[in-house]
């Protein structure tokens, strides 16, 4: 189902709703929340929406990035997001505060002592012209120090994230993405969540391949060679490189939420992947939820980081 962005505010919509955040903040629960919100405002979004944090108990990285993106999207729809139930600082509220979420949206942290945790890279809003140097100088060295994986072996992930941000720049007018990263040392997993509030993958894809559902459009977008030619030299490689690098090499999985679609890409065998579409609601723009198995990376022996001269075929 295509969810169109409400553009007219009903003059009769005078009650500013309060929305209870779910106990678990992740991509799927937020997509449902956003879907219910949009469905509940058939005549347009209200001027103010209050989010109630009182029942929040657990947050995933994609939840941080997605929720941050939702608030930014509401702002650009001229809807002001307010918070309640956040001043009683529970462990989950503290996690958000340490992630600099409240600093981003309220202008300051809830607690002066809050600070980014050693296992996270705090929520950052980054423009395309800064992301690539940030990856090289911040994220990759951080990932290397946390996991013990040498930086040269992590360059493939730098490429994937760079491809996503180039995609954001090519397909959105805002040229801004949010990124949040968390390392789970006991599970040997890194979760990387990236969000933008552009038009969304399905809208872009349907300009070239009309008639696809939102799920089908997401799957189409990662096919090698499929491009909407947002730039003349684009060839539809970027999202395919992301899926092949992470999923095809069986070092993780990727979930993409965009508009009414969400698709999990998982490994099916060497350089092969399956997809599980889900029907969860609405995701403004696009959120990428990337899960990487650090032990799988360590065991990779494909020599991709080795120096060589290119041999033409």
């Amino acid at each position, binding site marked *: 189902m295509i969810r169109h962005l409400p553009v007219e505010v009903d003059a009769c919509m005078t009650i500013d709703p309060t929305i209870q955040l779910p106990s678990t903040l992740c991509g799927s629960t937020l997509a449902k929340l956003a879907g219910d919100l949009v469905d509940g405002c058939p005549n347009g979004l209200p001027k103010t929406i209050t989010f109630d944090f009182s029942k929040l108990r657990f947050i995933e990285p994609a939840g941080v990035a997605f929720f941050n993106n939702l608030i930014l999207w509401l702002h650009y729809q001229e809807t002001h997001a307010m918070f309640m139930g956040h001043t009683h600082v529970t462990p989950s509220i503290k996690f958000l505060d340490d992630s600099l979420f409240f600093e981003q949206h309220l202008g300051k942290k809830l607690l002066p002592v809050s600070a980014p945790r050693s296992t996270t890279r705090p929520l950052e809003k980054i423009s*395309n*012209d800064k992301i*690539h*140097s940030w990856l*090289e100088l911040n994220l990759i060295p951080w990932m290397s120090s946390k996991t013990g994986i040498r*930086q*040269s072996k992590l*360059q*493939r992930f*730098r*490429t994937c994230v*760079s*491809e996503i941000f*180039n995609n954001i*720049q*090519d397909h959105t007018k805002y040229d801004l993405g949010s990124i949040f990263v968390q390392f789970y040392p006991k599970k040997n997993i890194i979760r990387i969540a990236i969000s933008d509030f552009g038009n969304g993958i399905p809208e872009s894809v349907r300009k070239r391949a009309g008639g696809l559902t939102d799920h089908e459009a997401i799957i189409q977008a990662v096919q*090698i*060679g499929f491009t909407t030619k947002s*730039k003349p*030299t*684009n*060839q*539809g*490689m*970027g999202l395919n*490189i992301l899926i092949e690098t992470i999923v095809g090499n069986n070092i993780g999985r990727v979930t993409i939420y965009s508009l009414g679609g969400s698709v999990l890409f998982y490994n099916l065998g060497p350089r092969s992947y399956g997809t599980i579409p889900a029907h969860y609601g609405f995701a403004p723009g696009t959120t990428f939820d990337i899960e990487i198995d650090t032990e799988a990376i360590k065991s990779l022996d*494909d*020599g*991709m*980081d*080795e*120096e*060589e*001269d*290119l*041999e*033409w*075929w």
Partner: protein
Amino acid sequence: MVVIEVIRTTCSADTTSQGEALRASLERAMREHKDITLSFSGISAVTSSFINASLLPILDTMAFDEFKARIKIVNSTRLINDIIKRCLLRGGSLAA
């Protein structure tokens, strides 16, 4: 023969605009020199946007055999070369 170092030309190999800058350098060099060595020394990663903007327009102006004969890519990595090859292969019907 002339050597073009990507890191001196564009600092990194991430964006379309950087690719366009490299393409301009390559085009200038190819007008004056038969053989070009393109060095990726100091470059740890490239994106498809960069390669598409830098090398594909060059390939559009000549046969692939001439492209391979005139441009040598050195000091790269297997990861970078893999992306270069994938981009060039998608750029048209290239004889293997």
